[in-house]
């Protein structure tokens, strides 16, 4: 049964838009601003463009507070991705995107198309995509459903990234019951380009051509938020796929062709944008909007994979691997020839027009004629009022763990999936294709060299919903600080962030409070660490049966070093090196992995966090690395000292003999602003002079096959075999 397009009057009466995610108020707003009853296509376009994904109608007021500019930022949020100057005439481009919902429905393809989408954002700026990262969160790994999701999501990420040939250099994988039915799948892509070749998604210049490039448009992906299933007969439903299938082969060709266009046809190319959420409509109308222009598109010219598609479907399809270009009039064939060389469809489908109207024709009829602004800047913005959740005002009493068997607790903690080795995950990603990867997954950050320079870029993704659940603001700041700590430990200076804001339903005041407060925390830390937000993405409504996930902003951060020698990894290098702990450790146990392990959940007031002190320690740590005092460095975060020390020993296959005059439980505290570092004896004096009281000498790296740590109330020996078993088997043994 073909879709029936209701008449404007019937739309007003039958209100199909309610099923597409538009409210009664929004329909009225659209109609009033338009000055007449919208037709089926027009109101359909509104449902896509006025969705949270395109209009940020709930999150805009929050995102406004982000700090987005410093002297290095060449382009901030607003385009496909942000751009930062990295010297030597080069710039780094990066962005992250969430694909939580598609991955919950269809884990392999959902994750794969998430990767495909973020890659397009990067090359649409004109940058060569050089690295990928991911950030994953799942429920408890003992559940068969979680095992299936993990296996398939990882397969999907690898399936796309490996095939297209972009190395996945890092990521994170967290486990907590809060994500059991709502996994988080965030992907980040990094690109490198000449800084004077930045491309924007603009459709300027009356008479210039709009060119559609890439895969044909099908009916896949249009029954998301805006396309209610109630409208289909069962037979149609059976034929209709809820998800798209990614085609990395096509995207590889698309990447190469688009980069060739930006490189060799600068004078012909006016603007370029990928077709992401809300497909053709969002890319085209945003390009017109950014250039303050009008546009007309002839839908008969859009390459279509299926017959009988109506304008609504063509415009809102989220078929993958498609791009939209604006090309100077007269240069159309020149550009089409480039794409044809790569066996890709490229067709002129529209023009930039004078005035500000957005017009669509279909079978010689005008099916949409609205002001550009009606679909863009006229979208509603809601100023929600947050309400502080009660749990924050009545925190449980502080968790005060008593460690009776340090040996046993240590090994059990090390084997927790959130702490344990992620090797079984990242070994399924090609980390080295393009032969730039200096540090592969397994250390604090992935590091790639920048070809043609002496520089390297480090990158990390970090999140911790537990901290934010206990304190959204402080947790938000903590997570930015942790990301920066990872980059510093790798010997690079943090230069900027991207984010994915994964939250529940923003119309609930308590959820909105979490969103707003965490943005405060993120902003404070970004300013203190000099890491502006240059791009990002919002994923709301992460709820199951009305229960939201923990507020989980994901921070993707990039660091820079102009000296390859400063790159540092976490593995112990040589017996005899001195082991130092930087920063202060307190009785900080609320929200920790230890609390989760011993009590089954998290509760209490999140521990204090001194942002200024964090900045100071990070500066000192980076300074020490740059001056060549440090042979290995590792930040302390989830799992605290115990996790970090074990990782250093395991990675270097060397032991250590240490004394630390604090209670045994402190081995698991997650106090911020700390690093473990090893220093050759010859550098001891210089190192100590630089660090002063902020570094405490604990002992030495040894050739022994074990860690020996003497603490105030415990003396523990852990053999390499025990540590390996706990750490390496933590995830695989639960996957069986």
């Amino acid at each position, binding site marked *: 049964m073909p879709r029936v397009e209701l008449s404007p009057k019937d739309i007003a009466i039958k209100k199909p838009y309610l099923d597409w995610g538009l409210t009664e108020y929004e329909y009225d707003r659209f109609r009033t601003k338009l000055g007449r009853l919208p037709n089926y296509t027009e109101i359909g376009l509104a449902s896509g463009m006025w969705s949270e994904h395109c209009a940020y109608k709930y999150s805009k007021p929050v995102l406004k507070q982000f700090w987005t500019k410093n002297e290095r930022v060449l382009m901030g949020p607003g385009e496909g991705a942000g751009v930062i100057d990295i010297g030597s005439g080069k710039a780094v481009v990066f962005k992250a995107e969430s694909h939580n919902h598609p991955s919950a429905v269809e884990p392999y393809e959902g994750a794969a198309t998430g990767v495909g989408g973020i890659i397009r954002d990067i090359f649409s700026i004109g940058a060569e995509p050089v690295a990928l990262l991911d950030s994953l969160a799942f429920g408890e790994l003992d559940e068969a459903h979680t095992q299936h999701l993990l296996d398939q999501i990882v397969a999907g990420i690898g399936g796309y990234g490996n095939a297209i040939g972009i190395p996945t250099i890092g990521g994170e994988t967290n486990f907590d019951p809060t994500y059991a039915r709502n996994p988080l799948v965030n992907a980040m892509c990094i690109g490198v380009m000449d800084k004077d070749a930045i491309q924007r998604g603009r459709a300027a210049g009356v008479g210039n051509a709009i060119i559609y490039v890439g895969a044909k448009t099908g009916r896949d992906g249009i029954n998301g938020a805006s396309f209610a299933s109630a409208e289909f007969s069962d037979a149609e439903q059976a034929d209709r796929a809820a998800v798209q299938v990614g085609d990395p082969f096509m995207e*590889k*060709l698309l990447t190469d062709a688009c980069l060739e266009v930006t490189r060799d046809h600068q004078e012909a190319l006016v603007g370029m944008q990928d077709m992401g959420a809300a497909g053709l409509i969002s890319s085209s109308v945003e390009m017109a909007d950014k250039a303050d222009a009008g546009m007309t598109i002839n839908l008969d010219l859009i390459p279509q994979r299926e017959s009988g598609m109506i304008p609504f479907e063509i415009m809102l399809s989220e078929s993958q691997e498609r791009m939209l270009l604006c090309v100077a009039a007269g240069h159309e064939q020149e550009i089409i020839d480039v794409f044809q060389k790569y066996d890709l469809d490229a067709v002129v489908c529209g023009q930039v027009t004078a005035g500000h109207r957005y017009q669509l024709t279909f079978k010689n009829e005008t099916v949409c004629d609205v002001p550009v602004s009606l679909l863009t800047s006229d979208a509603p913005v809601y100023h929600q009022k947050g309400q502080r959740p009660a749990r924050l005002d009545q925190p449980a009493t502080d968790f005060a763990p008593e460690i009776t068997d340090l040996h046993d607790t240590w090994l059990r903690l090390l084997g927790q999936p959130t702490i344990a080795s992620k090797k079984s995950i990242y*070994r*399924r990603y*090609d980390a*080295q*294709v393009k*032969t*730039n990867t200096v540090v592969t997954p397994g250390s604090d950050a992935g590091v790639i*060299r920048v070809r043609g320079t002496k520089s390297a870029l480090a990158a990390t993704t970090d999140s911790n919903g537990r901290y934010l659940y206990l304190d959204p603001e402080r947790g938000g700041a903590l997570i930015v600080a942790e990301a920066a700590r990872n980059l510093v430990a790798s010997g690079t200076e943090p230069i900027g962030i991207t984010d994915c804001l994964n939250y529940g339903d923003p119309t609930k005041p308590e959820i909105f409070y979490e969103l707003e407060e965490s943005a405060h925390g993120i902003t404070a830390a970004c300013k203190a660490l000099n890491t502006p937000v240059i791009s990002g993405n919002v994923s709301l409504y992460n709820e199951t049966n009305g229960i939201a996930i923990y507020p989980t902003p994901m921070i993707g951060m990039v660091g820079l070093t102009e000296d390859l020698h400063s790159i540092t990894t976490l593995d112990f290098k040589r017996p005899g090196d001195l082991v130092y702990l930087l920063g202060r450790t307190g009785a900080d146990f609320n929200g920790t992995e230890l609390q989760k392990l011993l009590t089954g959940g998290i509760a209490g007031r999140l521990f204090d966090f001194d942002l200024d002190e964090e900045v100071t320690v990070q500066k000192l740590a980076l300074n020490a690395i740059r001056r060549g005092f440090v042979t290995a460095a590792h930040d302390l975060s989830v799992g605290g000292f115990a996790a970090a020390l074990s990782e250093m020993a395991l990675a270097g296959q060397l032991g250590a003999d240490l004394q630390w005059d604090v209670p045994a439980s402190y081995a698991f505290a997650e106090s911020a602003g700390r690093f473990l570092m090893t220093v050759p004896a010859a550098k001891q004096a210089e190192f100590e002079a630089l660090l002063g009281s902020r570094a405490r000498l604990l002992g030495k790296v040894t050739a022994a096959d074990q860690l020996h740590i003497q603490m105030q109330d415990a003396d523990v020996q852990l053999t390499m075999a025990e540590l390996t078993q706990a750490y390496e088997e933590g995830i695989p043994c639960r996957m069986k």
Partner: protein
Amino acid sequence: MKAAVLSFPGSNCDQDLLWALSDIAGIPADLVPASATDLSGYDLVCVPGGFSYGDYLRSGAIANFAPVMAALKKHAANGGLVLGICNGFQILCEAGLLPGALQFNESLNFICESEPLTVVNTNTAFSGDYQPDETIHLPIAHGEGNYYADPETLAAIEAKQQVVFRYAANPNGSLNDIAGLTNAAGNVLGMMPHPERAVETLLGGRDGLAMFTALKKQMEGAAYATRRA
């Protein structure tokens, strides 16, 4: 002396190989598209890793239908050197230039890892700069690297000492731990591990370099021989 690096739609290690040959090993090399029909003038033809044509049917299967394959087969038949790495190995098997086939890894998962290999045959144009039975470490990155050949074929391969590299800790289920082997004539080598990813200390090791230095010597010698003749 000149090398060609073939580039199929979907190849993604072509630039890496080009870099290893020309910038690191000092072997002049060109990127040659799959649409080319002539490979004369090249002493060595390299078939790089990646996912040619998406590897959607079977890895390497569609690449066999590219125009350049006729020229590659001719080059090989004339005794020219051919090196296939990863997807290149798969393509050479599909094209019948090497015996056997590459199946899904036993675990069914893609594996990216540094693997210890034993160089079991140093009497080839590709491996002369390694020590007999030397252990080297090369990265692997593949989902379909599980070498299979029927029993007779396998016996013939072993009898003629065509195996050049064996895995020290078989990661993918390959029969006889085969990581790389030549054709009977010895001028065509296919291997799943990536020597081109192991030519710089900065990137974690240089165990792959000896393959390229051996090839360079071989080609220099050959070029000298041709000049004399």
